[in-house]
């Protein structure tokens, strides 16, 4: 199904000089492969075509079911040099979550259960003990 990325992930963004970073975290671990497949460097660059004038780099963090993106040349020079309203890229995470992606129905359903509070987003202590036992 075609959905905004925000249906299966949350994000936080920040700055280092003229480079913005966006960390994208899957709501359910089941959604991580979808992130890896759908949220590519190319698609992120396209989504930020009005903002990102450099390259986009992607790093994988399977341990957190997360991806980290570096958007180079995206903050108008960065720091106090920048004339941008969002000179620190604080809102970029929210902007990325509006990107449309293709996600399998079971992934969307699993993330929906996390959002509604029916299921935990990550294995809890109780879950792990069951699995270990």
């Amino acid at each position, binding site marked *: 199904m075609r959905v905004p990325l925000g249906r299966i992930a949350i994000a936080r963004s920040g700055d280092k000089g003229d480079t913005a970073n966006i960390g994208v975290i899957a709501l359910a671990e089941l959604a991580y492969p979808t992130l890896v497949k759908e949220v590519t460097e190319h698609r992120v660059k396209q989504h930020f075509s009005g903002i990102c004038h450099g390259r986009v780099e992607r790093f994988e963090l399977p341990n957190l079911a997360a991806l980290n993106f570096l958007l180079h040349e995206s903050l108008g020079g960065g720091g106090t*040099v920048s*004339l941008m309203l969002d000179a620190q890229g604080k809102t970029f995470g929210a902007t990325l979550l509006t990107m449309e992606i293709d996600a399998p129905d079971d992934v969307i359903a699993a993330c929906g259960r996390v959002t509604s509070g029916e299921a935990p987003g990550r294995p*809890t202590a109780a879950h792990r003990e069951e699995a270990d036992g």
Partner: protein
Amino acid sequence: MAEAGRKVRVASGQGFWGDWQEAPKLQVRKGPIDYLMLDYLAEITMSIMQKQRQRDAGSGYARDFVDLALDLAPDLVERNIRVLTNAGGVNPEACREALVAGLREASTGRPLRIATVHGDGLMERLDSLIAAGHELRNMETGEPLATIRDRVYSANAYLGQAPLLEALERDADIVITGRSTDTALTYAALAHEFSWASDDWDRLAAGVVAGHINECGAQAAGGNTMFDWRGVDLVAPGYPIIEASADGGFVVTKHPGLGGRVTWATVSEQLVYEMGDPAVYITPDCVADFRSIRLRDLGDDRVQVHGVKGSPRTDQLKVSIAYHAGWKATGTLTYAAPEALDKARRADEILRARLAALDLEFDEIRTEFVGAGACSGRVPERAAELPEVELRVGVRGTDRPAVERFTRELAPLILAGPPSVTGFAGGRPRVQEVMAYWPALIDRAAVEADLRVEVVEAR
């Protein structure tokens, strides 16, 4: 063994200069903690403090901290809590003197021992360092510092745990540093308490992860969280607390009874904040691999972190340099519907034509339409129906009079421009100095030889 089960609690009290002043008081008074870390310094903060110090030799540090420490002093003694802070900015000595003077009027039960860390400031040594072959090349552009040497405002090396450990070993109650890394303010406490070896890379890396979680205050405890943001009580949030064990494992938590929230989501969000390559998180004391972090949400605002791997520290320290890079000003006007965006665009065209007619030259003129995609860079569908749009224009250049003149060209648009405009009550935009950031590396030996810790007793 008692040691095996012993926990040390390091509480985060401030995430930046200007953070919520009540947070550290709640951390100290609303539950048990052993250490309070207070981070005041962002990349550009040092240059602001340097400017203040040039005007007044007794300034150049976070004054907020002195008021806070005086308020908290009796509690620190009573509850046996030690404070680690980089509030000293570019003048730790002045910060200490203000605190010592204030403590003379306070009744704390016993004298407080206050340590200051000196030697991160490289400003006075800059020319001799350059002459000795330290080029201090910009990590992003590769240019040597010599190209902008005459415009440098401040230069400080990021220090790690060594001076903090010395201060704690000398029984300091309060440690005031200049440009310590934010993370060291947390992990130095753990390394001290658990006597971690300086080459115990895994434990130090675990401490770095703990420090990264603590360094932005509420951000790890529900502030800015996207997960169920409506459901988080942020009126009086409990800031994060690291509850660490000797093996480097720790639980992120907060005081019960306060707002905020600690879950897999809030901790994960903070972990990815301002992240570069997650495999190579470089600090003065080790390199942490954020791909090794294991999280487990224990419920009840407790998230366990374990499994962190580290590798040896590098031979260099990062240096944060700020230099003068011209002047800038930004002003706004608001246009109402119908056709709000078109009106704002026309106003921008008129403004730019007038600036061109005046032969004003700028390095950059930037126009944004707030409400019409200024943050996202994406103009919304149905832009014609927007109820209002804020025109935001900024200029930047080396010619201060040109920037001054720009600040006088916005108001004329109110009468001599497109209709239905408002929002100029604040008057002319202010001209600001542009302080650019120059990140560089330096051999650690060139800095570490000059580090010095002073401890004084305030009574």
